[in-house]
Structures are given as structure tokens and as C-alpha cells.
């Protein structure tokens, strides 16, 4: 065990710090959680990539730098310390990396990492949430195309996405986990209707997506027919590992804000909230250090497995602790319509125990696959 940067890691960290002194995300879209905010995030993503700070652990052949995931953690720490958040870096792409052909990897991954092409994830359906494998969106093969019919839901950023990675049923005769395949396609193809869903904080991030005889060439299938379930598991294991989605930087950024806020509070309120901010520091440290352990395992070639559920659960605890702290420290303002950002932070934190697999599903995974408790 050695938490010290190696010489290359230290040099990298120093150069990144220097770069971050001169580069920060645009504040024009601050507090915008709609299209403008999405564009600002993409712009920040592209600048970070152009600077050489994103997609580090991806193979060089596909736009990465072939470094260990420890470098992703360094980026998260430093970007967070600079007061910004690191964008989510293509955890969907992990599915393409593991299951796609060389041609598909070359076609899709570099533009995804650069932030030039935005993707959405067509997984959940009205009847397939936690029980994802019961999904019913059909893809019937006719000659060299699949004809897709069905509906997805909770599809984040589908209204802005250029491409979609879709799980669909290609063989209804097989047991439910076996008959699923994965297709990718442009979101502007005929037969796709996106219907944004207004969320509890007022703007729309996720969507319903309807498919009506959408045609997707067979060459756009990722992996073999029936690879859909292991592919989904790969995506979810990465989605649950916080490095791929920038959570650590986001937490550290929020902690800095709370610590700065404390110094501006009147004495009695500072006494009330200082222990909670200190507690948040501890919770974030536990999550960050556990993630570092998971990333170190990945650097040693251990594939992410059930242990990423522990990362996800620690992350959920932190997110919701910070969300509650935001709400409580803001007093009555969010309740009187004067603090949309706090409303957003609090309500969105409640989704942390849903997205990427609910807290309950994660607990079942930890109990059964790590603690070895038998299924009913």
C-alpha cells in the first residue's frame, strides 16, 4: 500500500494543476440543468480532452492514453480541488470496448471520448426497472436490418444525444437473460420519438423514447446475439464505479463550497453546521479512498465486479448526506421559491439511490455475491 504518487503520476498531477489554473468551466450556464447546461458540460469535456486530461485509461488506439485508472482518479481529485466537476467519461463505451469489433471501436470510441458525439443509454423500460432482464423492446431481424419496436424510459439526455446504445430482445424464445442483444444507432433515424419527462426540480433530464419500426443495420450490433446481458452487467459495473462518472470531483467541489459557506454563517448557525460539514468530509474521504482501492485493483487487472456495488452504496450515502446538508443549511429559501439550485441538489441527490441500480438491488448484490448469503 502506497498512496504517494509515483514520479510519472506526480508530474502528471503537477501539469494538470498548472493547466487548471488557466482553465475552468464556463460560468455562463451555471445553475442551468437544461440544454444550455448540457452544452456547457460538453464544452468543458472537449477542453479537458484537448488538454490531454480525459479518457486516460482507454487504449491509445481508440483515443485514450493507455494509462492506469489511477490517472482518472488524479483528474477527479484535481478537477474537484480546482472547484469544478469532471464530466462523465463514456462508461457506455466500456461495453463497446469489451464487446465491439475493432471496426466498431474505431468508429465509436474516439468521438465519444473527445466529447464530439453524445450518447444515451437505452436500458430501462416501463416494465423492466430493477428487473432489467425482463425488457420487452423487440428487435426482429429482417435480412440485413433489425426492426425495433418498443419503449425505453428514464433515458437521460436522450433529447440531446447523437447516438444510443440500446438493449433489446432479439430472441423471445430463450430464457430472459439469454435473448437480449445490444444495438447502436443515430438518434435522428426515422422511427424514434423522444418525449422529455419533467422532473421534480422542474427541468427535463430523462426521457421516454419510443421506437416504431426503427431500422438498424445488423452491422450495428455490438457483440453476438445474446450478448446483451453480460454487456449490460459490464456497463452497470462501470457506471457504479465512480471514477468513470466524475463523482469524486463533484463531492470535493461541494465540500469546498460548504466549508467556505461556514465562514460566512453567523456564530450560532456555524456551530450547528460545522459538525455536519466535518462529517461530510469524513464520508467523502471514506468513499474516495474506497474508490481508490477499487481503481488500484483495476490497475492490477482485476475486472470490476460485485465490489463496485460497495463504491456505489458509499457514493449514494455521500450524495444524499450532501443533498440533505444543502437543504438544511439553506433554511426556508428553497421552500419559498428562492433557491432553485438547492432544490435541484437535494432532489437530485435522492435519485442517487435509484439510478445505476437501486440501493436495494445493490444491497442484494453485496449480500449474495460478497457475503455469500443465499438467494430465496
Amino acid at each position, binding site marked *: *500500500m*502506497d*498512496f*504517494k*504518487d*509515483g514520479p510519472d*503520476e506526480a508530474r502528471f498531477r503537477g501539469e494538470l494543476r498548472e493547466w487548471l489554473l488557466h482553465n475552468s468551466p464556463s460560468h455562463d450556464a451555471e445553475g442551468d440543468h437544461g440544454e444550455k447546461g448540457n452544452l456547457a458540460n460538453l464544452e468543458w469535456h472537449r477542453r479537458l480532452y484537448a488538454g490531454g486530461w480525459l479518457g486516460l485509461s482507454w487504449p491509445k488506439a481508440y483515443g485514450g492514453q493507455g494509462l492506469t485508472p*489511477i490517472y482518472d*482518479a488524479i483528474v477527479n481529485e484535481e478537477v474537484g480541488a480546482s472547484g469544478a466537476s469532471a464530466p462523465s467519461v463514456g462508461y457506455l463505451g466500456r461495453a463497446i470496448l469489451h464487446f465491439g469489433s475493432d471496426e466498431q471501436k474505431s468508429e465509436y470510441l474516439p468521438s465519444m471520448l473527445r466529447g464530439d458525439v453524445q450518447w444515451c443509454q437505452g436500458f430501462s423500460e416501463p416494465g423492466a426497472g430493477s428487473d432489467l432482464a425482463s425488457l420487452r423492446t423487440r428487435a426482429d431481424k429482417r435480412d440485413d436490418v433489425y426492426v425495433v419496436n418498443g419503449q425505453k424510459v428514464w433515458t437521460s439526455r436522450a433529447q440531446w444525444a447523437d447516438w444510443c446504445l440500446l438493449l433489446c430482445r432479439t430472441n423471445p424464445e430463450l430464457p430472459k437473460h439469454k435473448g437480449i442483444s445490444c444495438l447502436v444507432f443515430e438518434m435522428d433515424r426515422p422511427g424514434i420519438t423522444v418525449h422529455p419527462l419533467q422532473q421534480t426540480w422542474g427541468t427535463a433530464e430523462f426521457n421516454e423514447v419510443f421506437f416504431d419500426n426503427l431500422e438498424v443495420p445488423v452491422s450495428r450490433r455490438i457483440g453476438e446475439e445474446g450478448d446483451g446481458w453480460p454487456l449490460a452487467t459490464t456497463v452497470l459495473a462501470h457506471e457504479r464505479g465512480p471514477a468513470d462518472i466524475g463523482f469524486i470531483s463533484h463531492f470535493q467541489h461541494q465540500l469546498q463550497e460548504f*466549508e*467556505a459557506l*461556514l*465562514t460566512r454563517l453567523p456564530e450560532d448557525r456555524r456551530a450547528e453546521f*460545522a*459538525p455536519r*460539514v*466535518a*462529517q461530510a*468530509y*469524513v*464520508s467523502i*474521504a*471514506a*468513499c474516495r*479512498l*474506497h474508490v*481508490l*482501492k477499487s*481503481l*488500484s*485493483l483495476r*490497475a*492490477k487487472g482485476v475486472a470490476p465486479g460485485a465490489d463496485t456495488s*460497495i463504491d456505489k*452504496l*458509499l457514493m449514494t*450515502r455521500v450524495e444524499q448526506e450532501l443533498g440533505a446538508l444543502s437543504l438544511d443549511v439553506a433554511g426556508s429559501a428553497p421552500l419559498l421559491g428562492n433557491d432553485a439550485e438547492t432544490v435541484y441538489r437535494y432532489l437530485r441527490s435522492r435519485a442517487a439511490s435509484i439510478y445505476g441500480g437501486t440501493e*436495494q438491488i*445493490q*444491497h*442484494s*448484490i*453485496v*449480500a*449474495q455475491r*460478497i*457475503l*455469500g*448469503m*443465499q*438467494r*430465496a
Partner: protein
Amino acid sequence: MDATLTESEELLRETVRRIGADLAVGSVGEFDEYDDARGWKSLAETGLLGLRLPESVGGGAGTTLDEAITVEALAYNSLPVPYLGSAAFVGELLLAANAPEETLARLASGDLRCSLGLTNDLSDLWGHSSTSGTPIAFDSAGSSAAIVLDADNGYRLRAVALGDKVNSFDLTRQNHEIDPSKSVDVGPLGGEIDPDVFVRTIARLLTLVSADLIGVMDAGLATAVEYAATREQFGVPIATFQAMQHLCAAQLVSLEGGRSLTEYAAWAVDQDDANEALLAARAAKAYCSRAGRTVTEAVVQVHGGMGFTWDCMAHVFLKRALTDAKILGDHAVQISEIANLRGGSN
């Protein structure tokens, strides 16, 4: 950077767990008549008493992380041998005071058996922030004396006589009252401790108690999971119920969060600057003090009515965890210190 244990660190954990298992009690009833002298001798023979001491005195020249791994692995076996209080704690203070080799050699060999004097509320070393109340020699089974900070003389060590044994809630440990006015001679104890070294030493002690809590939580959770696999209700093992699975899974999440903080603190106290080390150690102690309580309470819950019987190990874990939580400051104490440390850095 590598946030995982090395092979030799993993091997140390396995080895110490085996040593601990050999010395462990077979049932709760055995704690009362346990021969801790035999246990102490075994730990001396295996080199664990001198793990952190220099090789020149027969020590292992180990890191704080090695020591934390050892504390954790012995706690995993609920070992009623005063390793934490009388070997690890005392060893750290003697090292900090630059005690002469003859003294360190007697600690490594097991001949010097002393415990450490804490304030009556167990939240600090006696003589540090406070000299009021009757000090308590913590984890003092078989101790011949207690080492205290000399309140009138800066950060110096002094040996004092043990008084009456106090009733211990924790079945695995003994404690004694001490009268700090009754000095005794246990040999030379070194000189004044440098303030920077003192901060680092406090960080080490906090880290080691956190490691003890990790061992207790780990053992408690393993016992609960094993019990749930055998106890049947409604015709099936209770381990198959989601209610049980989710309760146990949530405890593992807390345990692993605490483990990551503790391992980092153990690394930081040797490698990082003293204030960063203290912050890391207080974070570990804050988290583990709280998690230690919730995890071992859950262990009692999984055992149902059985968890309230004296012969079931569940209360052994709970009581050791509650004791550890208080030692050198509970969750609230650490949080308040962290708020000060973080506030000062802004």
C-alpha cells in the same frame, strides 16, 4: 499509487489471524479464567510485541500499517490479551520518547508489561488536556504499572502504580484505576517528546484503535452472516430473507468505508506530514467509532433473542466496539476536532 495491501501485508494479516485463532477463547464463559500470561508470551515469541520496535532490540521494524493489520487481526479473534493497550500503545509512546534500547528490548521480549494512563472519560491521554479525575490504565491485564504523561514536565513519560481493578463492560479487557502520585520504577522511559512527534503519536494511537474496531466489526459481521445461514424460520434459513440481506450488506458497506479510512491513516502517519496524518487518523476514528456501534448493534439484531444471551458472542463484539469508540475520543469528539483542523486550513 496503490491503495491495496501488498502480498506481504496480506500475508501478515493471515498469519496474525492464525496466531489469534490459536489463542482465542472457545466460548464466552472462558473470558473470565483466560490465561493472558500465556497469550502475552505467545505474542512475544512470535515477535508481535516488538513489531514496531527497531531490529537492534529484537523488534520487527514494522510500519504503522503492519501494526494496524496486527491489531485488527487480533481483534478479529476477540483476543483477551492486552495487545492494543499494553504493547501497541505503550510501544508508540516509548518510541516517541526515545526510550533507551534496554527498555525497548524488555517490551519486545514481554518482560516490560505496562498499560497507558487515560483520563477517566477515556477520551485522551491523562496529563495531556486534563489532569483531573482518577486516571484509568486502559487494557491493563497483567500490567505491573501504568505509563502516564508527566503533567508537570511537558511531554515526558513516567511510570505509576496500578490501583484497584475497575469493572470492565468489555469482556475482553481489564482496566485499573491509577494514582498518579505513586511513581514506580520500571526502568528509563526516555526524554521529552517533540511536539511534532507527539501529534504523530496521537495519530498513530487513533489509527490503531480504529484498526481494532475494524477487526471487531469484521468478526461480528462474519458471525452474524454465519448465524443467519443456519437459523431457520418459516422453513428456510433467515439469510434468504431480503430484510436480513440488506441489513448485513449495509453493515459491510460501513465496515469497508472504515477499513479504507483506517488503512490510509496508517499509511499517512508514517509517510505524510503530522497534521495531515492527524486529520486522516481522526477521520478514521470518527467513522469507525460510529460504524463500530451500528455494525455490532446489527450483529445483535441478526441473532434475535439469542443475541441477548450471555453465551452468544454478539455482546462481546458490541461491548468491545463501544469501548473502542470511547478510547481517545468518540465520534463527536473527533468530528469537533476535524471541524477545527479543516477550519484552520481555510
